[in-house]
């Protein structure tokens, strides 16, 4: 009842000075709005990056060749062909934590089909690759283990390649030539879109790993071995196991460094989200400063309000208002002022986030906890910056307040 009355009195006072109240709230509106918009966009882009990285495959582990050594000079990562088809075989046979393992042999070639041609990457992989990388077949089939054994000249086209070479016509069964080797198109992949690094994942042709290795490449160099762990929880165990198997396979002594690098999907996700997270936090902190300025604006206006209403305070004290009653009244007014500003700020922030999200084409994640935090924070701003003026009002002497002109 009493609080309801305080709220009513506060609302009356805010409505009596509409323009002034609005200007006072502006600081809070801008502060809360920008914090919410930035958080929503920040979390949205974080989510986008995560989905993009996840779309690379499930529980993915990438084994790259390690740094070579030429005399005393250490060469960069991937400078030696330290991973081989034997490694793939060993991983398949010995590991317990890996669901699937596939080599990847890549050559960049001009591909010709009839009178059309297109430069793309031809990747030699095993049938498991489809599962590992989350590719799906749109039409036709993917090749089999048998095709790998026989070095079959079968090709599965990515959506982009299919469109560039065949346009609207059906590529299934057609012939294409890669470095004068004829291939038969046996399947077309479903569209996958851009990767997190921005390259087109549909601009690719898959052939059996052996075909690429022996017919198109040098017969030994693997670009990468892709593996899929049995579950997300087993990612760390899988990484250890791979290290163990490959070190044994490469006959490395304890003093020697690994001649390969393992990178896991979770690592990449963490790195990326850490980066965007830092950026979001930084921008939000800057936005928070405007909230602080908004709070000071509220304090300023509340001080003016206390002076303006000195006589009213005197009357209220004369009829029996305690100092705490007066204090509560001004605090409530400051809190309501900043809360209304906060609500406007949330609306502004969300519209800004969704507007910008639509324009920039990135997801917007509205987080209830962020909104609730913003509300709590603005109420806190009201209490903090309302406290001094409210205390000043409560400390007035009734006689002096009544005499105030």
């Amino acid at each position: 009842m009493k609080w309801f009355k305080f709220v009513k009195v506060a609302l009356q006072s805010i409505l009596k000075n509409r323009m002034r109240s609005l200007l006072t709230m502006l600081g809070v509106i801008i502060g809360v709005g920008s914090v919410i918009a930035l958080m929503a966009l920040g979390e949205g882009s974080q989510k986008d990056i995560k989905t993009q990285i996840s779309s690379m495959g499930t529980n993915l582990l990438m084994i790259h060749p390690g740094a070579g050594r030429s005399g005393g000079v250490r060469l960069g990562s991937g400078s030696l062909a330290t991973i081989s088809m034997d490694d793939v075989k060993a991983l398949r046979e010995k590991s317990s934590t890996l669901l699937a393992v596939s080599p990847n042999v890549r050559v960049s070639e001009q591909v010709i089909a009839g009178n059309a041609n297109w430069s793309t990457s031809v990747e030699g992989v095993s049938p498991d690759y489809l599962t590992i990388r989350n590719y799906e077949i749109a039409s036709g089939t993917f090749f089999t283990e048998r095709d790998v054994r026989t070095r079959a000249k079968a090709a599965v086209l990515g959506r982009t390649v299919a469109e560039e070479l065949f346009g609207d016509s059906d590529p299934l069964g057609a012939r294409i030539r890669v470095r004068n080797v004829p291939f038969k198109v046996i399947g077309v992949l479903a569209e996958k879109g851009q990767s997190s690094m921005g390259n087109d994942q549909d601009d690719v042709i898959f052939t059996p790993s052996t075909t690429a290795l022996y017919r198109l490449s040098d017969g030994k160099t693997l670009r990468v071995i892709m593996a899929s762990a049995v579950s997300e929880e087993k990612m760390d165990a899988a990484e250890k196991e791979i290290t163990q198997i490959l070190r044994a396979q490469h006959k490395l002594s304890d003093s020697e460094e690994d001649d390969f690098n393992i990178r896991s999907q979770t690592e990449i996700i963490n790195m990326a989200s850490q980066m965007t997270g830092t950026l979001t936090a930084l921008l939000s902190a800057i936005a928070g400063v405007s909230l602080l300025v908004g709070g000071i604006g509220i304090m300023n206006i509340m001080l003016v309000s206390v002076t303006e209403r000195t006589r009213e305070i005197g009357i209220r004290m004369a009829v029996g208002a305690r100092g705490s009653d007066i204090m509560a009244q001004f605090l409530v007014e400051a809190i309501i002022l900043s809360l209304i500003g906060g609500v406007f700020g949330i609306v502004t922030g969300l519209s800004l986030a969704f507007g910008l999200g639509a324009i920039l084409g990135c997801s917007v994640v509205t987080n209830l906890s962020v909104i609730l935090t913003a509300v709590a924070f603005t109420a806190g701003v009201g209490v903090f910056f309302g406290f001094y003026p409210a205390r000043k009002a409560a400390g007035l002497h009734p006689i002096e307040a009544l005499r105030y002109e």
Partner: protein
Amino acid sequence: METILLKDAQKIFTLGGEKVHALDGVSLSIMPGDFVAVMGASGSGKSTLMNIFGCLDTLTSGEYFLEGRNVSGMGKKHLADIRNQRIGFVFQGFNLLPRTSALENVQLPLFYNRNKKGLNPKKLAAEALDRVGLANRMSHEPSQLSGGQQQRVAIARALVNDPAIILADEPTGNLDSKTTLDVLTLFKDLNQQGITIVLVTHEADVGEHARRVVAMRDGRIISDDLNGNNAEALAAVQPGTRQEAAS
């Protein structure tokens, strides 16, 4: 038991390093149902006395009992509660909240009353307005009311918490002679209903409506008489006033 009992009250203000005795050993008792006018020129200490009675200010020394309770040593919080429940104020400048209806103005003391849980503030306020003859002006704001009506709203506000005493500080100072008479008649009526009233004035013809007149000068009581016997005292306080009143 006395409604008001003041024993050797001293109030000293320090103005620019100089000590001013606003009250200089005042002793006074007022019984329930009395109607007292405190008279004196400006600076005589009558307003200070009123502020002490109203628990708006505290004594430098001496004791003040309100309905037998020693108020002298009480803290701000208790004084606020006493003002709220035991004292009704009527001011010269009405002191109503602007842009607030008469009914809401009268409800104001009830808002701060911590002992009247469960009572209907609207009903009590309406009854108080009815007592001062403003039953038909409840939703009017002060700016829509005449001076006399505004003062009657203030009186209703003073009545609403059923106080021990009504303190009126120059209640007719801003009113013309006709409305002055209306307001004083209202005070008399209320006094006849048993309400104790103390009013401060410097106008002799206002003082004449009270049952008892206390005259002050330089922080001291110089006379304390039942009405009709106070001619000399009045003359001493304000030379010439009587002649004007008589003429």
